[in-house]
């Protein structure tokens, strides 16, 4: 378990992180979501120790994180960086060697990784000659080459086609399944919704919501939707909060299931009901709500 506790960080007069705290649980994929400038990259850089917090701590299993543990994290920085003139496989061997791994074994492992990520045939090309999507795959391989104990990935899916996203996801899932905590940031909510077990939503340097998707969805106010033949303007008199109203269609929030059912009963006495049911929230709604 990696925990960030009460992180604060300012750049000049901008207070970028404000008492930021959350956990990255082992064996889970944690999505780190927030708008531009919310503080995601700053947080990740502090976790990796390439940036210092003004105050607050990064803990590993309750104790301050060590340089040694950090060295074993697989890290993918926001701005992609590999040596432009070095071939992908050579960089992987170099990075493995830097982690104290055997060069020959790393070469084999690197080729396997590239094979899996669909980059094997470009393994010996200099990185600068690869397409952006392929550079992205090379970067993912670089984060994984040393068999990391945890993964911190800044926007790992940006620039990848859907097939590459699926392959990458599979690889990351394997790392999580081996018991490593995995944190990745993204602003592609549909992806996050599909991929992550846990979510941390931040805005303006503060955690606005966190937990599993189900937990987050549960916190949202329950909303029902009713579609009927007749005009539904009468719903306003039922003691529920009408959010949307358009002739025969109404969307309302109710405090309890009973209250909602009472609306349904009333509707059936007034005419034909085409549709009635609770509205399923998407993360998108929650995201917008928490940031509102």
């Amino acid at each position: 378990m990696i925990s960030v506790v009460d992180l604060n960080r300012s750049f000049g007069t901008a207070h970028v992180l404000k008492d930021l705290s959350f956990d990255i649980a082992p064996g889970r994929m944690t999505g780190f979501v927030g708008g531009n400038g919310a503080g995601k990259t700053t947080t990740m850089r502090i976790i990796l120790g390439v940036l210092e917090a003004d105050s607050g701590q990064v803990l590993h299993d309750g104790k301050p994180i060590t340089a040694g543990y950090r060295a074993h994290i697989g890290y993918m920085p926001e701005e992609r960086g590999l040596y432009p003139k070095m071939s992908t496989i050579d960089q992987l061997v170099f990075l493995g060697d830097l982690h104290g791994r055997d060069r020959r074994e790393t070469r084999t492992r690197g080729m396997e990784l590239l094979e899996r990520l669909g980059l094997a045939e470009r393994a010996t090309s200099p990185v600068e000659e690869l397409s952006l999507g392929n550079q992205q795959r090379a970067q993912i391989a670089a984060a994984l080459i040393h068999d990391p104990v945890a993964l911190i990935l800044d926007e790992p899916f940006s620039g990848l086609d859907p097939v590459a996203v699926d392959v990458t996801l599979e690889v990351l899932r394997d790392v999580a399944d081996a018991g490593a905590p995995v944190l990745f940031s993204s602003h592609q909510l549909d992806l996050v919704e599909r991929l992550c077990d846990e979510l941390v939503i931040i805005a303006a340097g503060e955690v606005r919501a966190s937990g599993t998707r189900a937990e987050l969805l549960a916190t949202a106010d329950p909303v029902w939707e009713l579609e009927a033949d007749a005009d539904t303007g009468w719903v306003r008199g039922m003691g529920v909060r009408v959010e949307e109203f358009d002739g025969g269609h109404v969307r309302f929030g109710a405090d309890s299931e009973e209250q909602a059912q009472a609306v349904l009963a009333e509707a059936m006495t007034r005419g034909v009901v085409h549709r009635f049911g609770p509205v399923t929230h998407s993360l998108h709604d929650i995201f917008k709500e928490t940031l509102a």
Partner: protein
Amino acid sequence: MSTTTNTSTHVGTDDHRRVSFAHAVGVVARREIVTRVRSKGFLVPTLIMLGILLLLAVVGPSVASMIAGSDDTIAVTVQTQDALPEDGYEPMVVGSEQEVRDAVLAGDAEAGLIPGPAPLGLTVIGEREAPTSLIQGLSVSPEVELIGTDAADPMALYFIGLGFGLVFFMSAMMFGMTMAQSVVEEKQTRIVEILLSTISTRALLTGKILGNTVLAFAQVVAYAAVALIGLAVNGGRLNLDGLGLPIVWFVGLFLLGFVMIAALYGAAASLVSRQEDIGTSTTPVTMMVMFPYFAIIALSSNPTALHVLSYIPFSAPVSVPMRVFTGDATWWQNSVSVLILAASVVVALWFAAMVYERSILRTGKALTWREVLR
């Protein structure tokens, strides 16, 4: 539950330590060297330079003497045959003075030598002009006695200084710039974030300095070896006896001096995030590297100036070998020079580590020395 516990225990029991400092330095240095040696920009110019040096040092003097030594044919009579200097002339013995004149006119001989008036008793016959060397060879000169036998030829000293200065200047610039570019490349591509989440800043900087120093040193040793081979092959022909020891001094001091220069180039480069800004940020270091080169050219004939320059760390690698060559330097003066240089290396390393640590992760706009040193 049990599987989860097992796998997480596996992850948990992994030895969470960094690799040793020495290992990290070794890996970084190795990459610097391998990348550089494989690049065309390094290998081709080095081989060309070695080839030129080898040609100049080994083949050059022989070629020169071959061209100069195609012996002039001189027409002589039996009487003047013995008067002709042996070195560099091919005598063509003919029967009479008239035949000597005919041979010269016909172009069969460069010049002729016939009996003439006193005091020499010889007349040189030429078509339009006679070879000056022949006339000098036949002239009577006063006896010359040189009493300052140890004093070095000022021209030789000048060229030796120029040679040392040039090699130092070129190598320091070339590998200093390589060092600078390599630092900025890592900063610009942000791979430095990945590297520094794995190893310490000091290990990274040390590895880079080590790698570039090994490259520069290997190149200089190769140049020096070629020069020494040339001297050995040509032994007597070049009057550069006693250059062996200065070359050894030069190589040793170059090693120290280059560590200092590489550290300073690394520090200067860490201030900027784009290759385009390297020139500006490394200008102060480049000036310090150019200083000995120009100082030596201007002051090679001034022993006092050379003495002073030998105590300045940037010029010591050039001026100390020169003073060893002239024989002006005493052992303790050289020791002081080495000590000053070694102390400067330590200070430069400390300074570079501080600057590099403070600036390598601060990307964006170029930093100023003031911002970093504050």
